[in-house]
């Protein structure tokens, strides 16, 4: 029998991979599901970018822990709570998913929150903003990672009132997020001695023309028009406010949830001068720049990551560290146990630096108040923000509500 040297080497190489492949199949893998808005109002701010950042965390982690198997899948919840809850159930019951990541749109996140708790899995929230996730609806399986409406209201709202914007009119997306954002901001307006003159709640997500709400807000005589919305809704509001000369005289706009992706879509021409709050900016320090450099080539359309997408990276990385410390089998067995472990471990990554997690599940990250640069001030691609103020992680989070959250032992 003739055995050529080449085939001998080939089969030896094949044999060498066999035991490893077998070991890999035996180890129970962790499966992450990025449940996000892939096609709607919030898809540019979350969507594929959130998926890319989650995958980045996984690939960095797997490079450091070669024996650990992790898989990432994703789905589009279309901003519909029923679709989100059904997908979550399918993922847990049929597809063996252990962790759900991101989930923008507060109404969807609240629906998913219930399913995750029921199935004892893990919920890493980056995209949703409602503080209820660590308040009334707090859960031993859920961590709220990146921001909430309280943080936005405190950082942006307080700053506007301090600089003389003491009368407000809100244009509000008519669902849980919009109302939460309006309520949180109202709290700080009143604390600062300001007044809310009125609000228009518009139908979400079917509104594209905001001119009638803007004209009405202007007619109210309020000094600040608070945009309690996000995504393309906010973009349209800013654009149309310029068109109708709303931002003139004493009237200013406050975009209460705006991320760098929105600024990019609007262009600096239309958005310069706006103040906004994010907990992450790519050009904040060496570590944020390093993270952005690593992930940028993989980001959809070459867009720089915003706080929500970067938050998916940070949350996923911390989860994987906890799961590796416990062992994959233990991590799969109980979501609440991993979350408990995550709360005890110090959080450390390039996105948020060194941070901690509170007992109610709120990850404490500093809130940065930025002002959008003018086209002349901007020195390069995505050089959009000037840092104005910083609120510490503890101050940017809502007070621990022991009467609301059962996780807090009073």
């Amino acid at each position, binding site marked *: 029998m003739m055995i050529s040297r080449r085939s001998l080497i080939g089969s030896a190489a094949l044999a060498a991979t066999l035991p490893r492949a077998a070991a890999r199949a035996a180890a129970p893998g962790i499966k992450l599901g990025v449940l996000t808005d892939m*096609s*709607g*109002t919030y*898809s*540019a*701010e979350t*969507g*594929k970018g959130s998926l890319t950042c989650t995958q980045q965390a996984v690939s960095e982690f797997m490079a450091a822990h070669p024996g650990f198997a992790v898989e990432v899948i994703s789905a589009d919840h279309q901003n519909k709570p029923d679709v989100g809850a059904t997908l979550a159930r399918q993922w847990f019951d049929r597809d063996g998913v252990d962790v759900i990541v991101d989930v923008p749109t507060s109404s969807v996140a609240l629906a998913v929150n219930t399913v995750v708790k029921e199935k004892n899995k893990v919920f890493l929230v980056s995209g949703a903003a409602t503080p209820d996730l660590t308040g009334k609806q707090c859960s031993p399986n859920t961590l709220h990672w990146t921001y909430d409406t309280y943080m936005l209201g405190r950082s942006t709202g307080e700053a506007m009132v301090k600089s003389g914007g003491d009368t407000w009119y809100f244009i509000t997306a*008519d669902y849980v997020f919009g109302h939460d954002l309006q309520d949180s901001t109202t709290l700080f307006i009143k604390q600062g001695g300001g007044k809310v003159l009125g609000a*228009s*709640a*518009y*139908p979400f997500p*079917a*509104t*594209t*023309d905001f*001119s*009638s*709400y803007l*004209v*009405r807000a202007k*007619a109210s005589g309020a000094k600040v028009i608070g945009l309690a919305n996000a995504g*393309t809704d906010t*973009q*349209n509001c800013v*654009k*149309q406010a310029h*068109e*109708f*000369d709303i931002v003139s005289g004493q009237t200013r706009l406050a975009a209460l949830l705006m991320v760098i*992706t929105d600024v990019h*879509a*609007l*262009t600096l021409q*239309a958005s310069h001068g706006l103040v906004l709050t994010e907990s992450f900016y790519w050009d904040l320090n060496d570590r944020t720049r390093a993270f952005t450099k690593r992930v940028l080539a993989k980001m*959809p*359309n070459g867009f720089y990551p915003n706080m929500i997408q970067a938050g998916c990276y940070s949350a996923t990385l911390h989860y994987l560290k906890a799961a590796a410390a416990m062992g994959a089998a233990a991590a799969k067995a109980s979501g609440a146990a991993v979350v408990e472990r995550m709360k005890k471990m110090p959080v450390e990554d390039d996105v948020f630096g060194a941070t901690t997690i509170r007992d109610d599940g709120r990850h404490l990250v500093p809130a940065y108040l930025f002002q959008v640069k003018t086209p002349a001030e901007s020195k390069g691609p995505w050089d959009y923000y000037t840092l104005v103020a910083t609120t510490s992680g503890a101050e940017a989070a809502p007070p621990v509500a022991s009467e609301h959250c059962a996780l807090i032992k009073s």
Partner: protein
Amino acid sequence: MVMIFGVPAPLLLGQILLGLINGAFYAMLSLGLAVIFGMLNIINFAHGALFMTGAFVAWMLLHYAGIGFYPALVLVPLIVGALGVLLERTIIAPLYKIDPIYGLLLTFGVALVIEGLFRNGYGSAGLPYEIPASLSGGAQLGFMFLPTYRGFVVLAAAIVCFATWVTIEKTRLGATLRAATENALLVRAFGVNVPRMITFTFAGGVALAGFAGVLAAPIYTVNPDMGENFIIVVFAVVVIGGMGSILGSIVTGFALGVIQGLTSVFYPEGANMVIFLVMAFVLLVLPRGLFGKVA
């Protein structure tokens, strides 16, 4: 300050004007739909998607070829119209002889495909399209600030709507067209190429959507969902005006824009609902719509 129903008069006047601007889009879109339905008996669910295509083509012309807004006002309807010819010849024409419901399903599918393609290619974040410099700025009317561009939109829409109405109701071409829908066989016997006429009618209808798309591009961010947001309202407009009625869709389009504007003063949450309330009411009282012809 003068008050009307407890609302300051300037605010009310402002909303009526804004309503007219929105109404201009409703009118242009429902007009195209009415032309296609009236002449071809096809319920074109892809109309919103073609409107969105118009906005995207305008953006592409500017972005890839440096062709500005005014040439786009002519080029885009031609391009979208050509797309209409392609659609009509390849997939819609074979459905004329069967139940209109198939046309509806087909065009609905076409809409999903077109939207999916743009979403895949350009994402769903809005693409910016600047208002042309010559139309930027605006005028202080006393009760509100009217951006020049919005005024231009109302004017352009009114002209296009009027021209379409004249073409169909008052010209020889329109007369032949209407005759062809009544009795295609007889008109063919007079030597008129009816299939070609139908193709061009379809193209004309969707070209109107493309034209509206160009006008909409500077107002709304150009995004794949912009048609979807309009199309349901526009269908309601067509139903209220009377299926297939040209004049009905123009008048109803502007009128519903105003009603919607007024609703957003008194009860903003109901702004999107009011159109469907009107539709339900009209259907109960006048099942053929306001301008529908009695069969």
